[in-house]
């Protein structure tokens, strides 16, 4: 696949946001805020950064991606489907019985979809797994990169800092952690629930290279990843500032949207704020068909 440029990536992000809204309108259950806020990160990863082959998900030359904060999975599923890991129309099955799009991700050999390496949903476990994977690859002198996506609230978990210490100690420099710094978790602002600052200094103190960027700016995010790849000798973390619910005015930067789906009315409003793209939606709702008919007339 050709690597997409910024304008195309922006359009993919926009499509991922539409996908997330529609998936949640169908499932009537699931997380809106994080998935919308991180759509730019997921489009950049899956259509520019990651060295992967959707037709061969277990290709041993692949870059590994771990979603430690499993509740972000709606946007991950959308990115995986758009990249060709499984059929687009399967996005209608989010959180449904007998389906593969589990409310929190599972690997393909249990309940889940290709592209998912390990289960997540209980927070705080993914960094350890990513560190283990990085150590294993290094042992085999492999050049694959390992990426792991963490929520900022998730950093409350002690295991994250155990893993941070392990990675620093073993100088695993094939590892890039991405922290979605939206300053929101369930009960409120991260600063009110459990203060994280000074966050950059914390990672530095654990012997990591620390980079910061605007995670809702694709150019900034991609150039920061490139910079990170060039840094040697220590694990790397990117603190990516984002807005929860990015792209939907009434959700933006509001922690109350962490774990709820839009109802029909809110979903319609959200879709009206995110224009359709050339990629097309995975489903057209009945009410959309009516609107489209009217606009054709």
């Amino acid at each position, binding site marked *: 696949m050709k690597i997409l440029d910024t304008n195309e990536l922006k359009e993919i992000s926009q499509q991922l946001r539409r996908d997330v809204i529609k998936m949640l309108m169908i499932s009537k259950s699931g997380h809106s805020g994080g998935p919308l806020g991180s759509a730019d990160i997921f489009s950049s990863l899956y259509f520019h950064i990651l060295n992967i082959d959707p037709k061969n998900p277990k290709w041993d030359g692949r870059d590994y991606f771990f979603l430690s904060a499993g509740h972000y999975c709606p946007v991950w599923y959308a990115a995986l489907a758009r990249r060709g890991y499984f059929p687009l129309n399967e996005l209608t099955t989010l*959180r*449904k019985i007998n*389906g593969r799009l*589990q409310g929190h991700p599972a690997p393909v050999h249990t*309940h889940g979809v290709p592209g998912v390496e390990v289960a997540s949903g209980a927070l705080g476990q993914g960094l350890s797994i990513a560190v283990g994977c990085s150590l294993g690859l290094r042992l085999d002198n492999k050049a694959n990169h390992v990426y792991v996506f963490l929520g900022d609230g*998730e950093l409350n978990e002690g295991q994250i800092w155990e893993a941070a210490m392990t990675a620093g100690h073993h100088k695993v420099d094939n590892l890039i952690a991405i922290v979605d710094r939206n300053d929101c978790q*369930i009960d409120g602002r991260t600063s*009110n629930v459990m203060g994280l600052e000074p966050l950059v200094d914390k990672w530095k103190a654990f012997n990591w290279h620390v980079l910061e960027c605007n995670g809702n700016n694709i150019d900034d995010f991609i150039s920061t990843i490139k910079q990170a790849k060039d840094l040697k000798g220590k694990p790397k973390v990117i603190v990516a500032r984002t807005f929860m619910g990015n792209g939907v005015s009434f959700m933006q930067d509001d922690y109350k949207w962490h774990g709820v789906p839009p109802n029909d009315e809110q979903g319609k409003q959200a879709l009206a704020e995110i224009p359709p793209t050339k990629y097309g939606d995975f489903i057209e709702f009945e009410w959309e068909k009516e609107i489209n008919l009217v606009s054709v007339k």
Partner: protein
Amino acid sequence: MLKFQPKEHKATRLGFGEALVELGHENPNVVVLGGDVTGSVRTDLFMKAFPNRFFSVGIAEQDMMGTAAGLAIAGKIPFASTYGEFATGRPFDQIRQSIAYSELPVKICASHCGITVGQDGATHQSLEDIALMRVLPHMTVASPCDYHQAKKMVKASMHLKNPLYLRFFRDNSTVFTSPDSPFQFGKADTLIDGSDVTIIACGLQVWEVILAEEILAKDGISVRVINMHTIKPIDVETINKAAEETGAIVTAEDHQKHGGLGSAVAEVLVQHCPTPQEFVAVNDTFGESGLGEELMKKYGINKDAIVKAVHRVIERKKSNRFSRR
């Protein structure tokens, strides 16, 4: 005819949250720990009423249990609350060493237990928590059948000196007991008397059993229904009496078959009064995403599964295998 009439639908977790506020007024030593799911487990009510006695530990369940142990040592009465899996599996060793072995009066109160939590999927469906907590020495383990019993259980927990695990559920469920019916840890409620078979259940499965009893009664089967709200210490006397008088036992729980209520009952039967028993429980598998009702059907823990289990156990009782009759 249904032997109990549904009064309304309210969540057991709400009963917990409301009882906590009442306890907060009664006793200034009551403190509550929150793990970033405060609104979900309904400790938000206590947090608003007593902000200075509420401690947010963030998303850090191991730290939560340790902090609760420390508060208990300092003379406080700590209630630590989060979702079932994160209240038991995640901080198991902290509970084992710092709370159970150290015999500290920490009250671990878990919500969103069982497969009925539904769409979040297997990672969030705590189906092992009874087993994990029941195996720990000193630990009392209990689960209410409805909102009123949840309230009573939380109020009664104040007098327990040992560690406690309480198991609540997310969904609004049928309220069928009354605010003034008695409650005592370790003393099971015989809700319906019967002579052909006994069904022993805990949590929201009790209502499912009441629905099953209606179907079975139409078939002329006389069913005794026991709400075993306290799984540990279990009410040995009531189990033995039921085994002797009805000669067939079915257990029903929204939990793994291995290690839960059914196992606890079997441990009693096999030692005191060997009796055929059938298990209605999730059979050694993880759950998946879906609606609560769909999952109860697929994983064999709804009223139909209970009815079938009753027919199976009665067959076994007749054929006299493992039966003393």
